[in-house]
């Protein structure tokens, strides 16, 4: 199912999110993203991976692939507590300290989709290449 894109990448999640951000940044730039849209994807992946550290025992990995139209990054955990409806999370507002990760991902990316299977849950983040409108 991952074979449709070119240049597949795989990175384990560790508590060094700075290193992960660097890898996603390089991958996204090579795929053709730039500027704010690249920064936004990097932040969204950071948020999804931070959720794995905080809520899924820190066990998971990141996969990335792209074609001529989209860069797609999938952040997978092994716990499987995230379900598709979590992608609809609303803005918690500034009165709430935590729990804005998934809402923020939706503001940053063109597409956010959560899937779950026996291996765990996955947040799929997608940013369109080319002259697509700004999200949000």
């Amino acid at each position, binding site marked *: 199912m991952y074979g449709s894109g070119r240049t597949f990448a795989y990175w384990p999640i560790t*508590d*060094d*999110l*700075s290193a992960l*951000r660097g890898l996603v940044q390089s991958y996204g730039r090579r795929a053709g993203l730039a500027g*704010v849209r690249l*920064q936004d994807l990097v*932040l969204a992946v*950071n*948020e999804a991976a*931070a959720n794995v*550290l*905080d809520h899924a025992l820190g066990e998971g990995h990141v996969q990335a692939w792209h074609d001529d139209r989209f860069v797609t990054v999938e952040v997978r955990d092994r716990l499987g507590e995230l379900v598709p409806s979590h992608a609809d999370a609303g*803005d918690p*507002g*500034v009165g*709430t*300290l*935590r729990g*804005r*990760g998934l809402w*923020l991902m939706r*503001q*940053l990316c063109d597409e956010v989709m959560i899937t779950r299977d026996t291996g765990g849950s996955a947040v799929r983040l997608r940013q369109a290449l080319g002259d697509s409108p700004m999200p*949000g």
Partner: protein
Amino acid sequence: MNFTVHVDAGSADGRPLAVRTLVLTGELDHRSAPQLQRALEDAYAERCRHLIIDVTGLGFCDSTGISVFLGARRALASSQGNVTLAGLNQRIERIFRLTGLDQAFSTYPTADEARAAILAT
């Protein structure tokens, strides 16, 4: 990139100032946020009421960092104090605008301007 918090806490004669400035540099994220949280707790323990957080040198801030900023706002509001942010660069301003933090905090171009505004009230 490393994260550092530089604390400007005292006057030249060693007395604590009513206004404390925290100068942040580097990347504020899941790993570095506890460092900022500790600096904030030191400030609360010393009864600091007005905090200026200078983010001029902050290259990255995620939702973990946002949680810490909002926690500081809540902590100081309970003692009639406040948190003021200074030096928002383009990247930080975008994430603050998306999350509504630009409306939740007073912001100034520089820490000096923030300090002058606090001392004038």
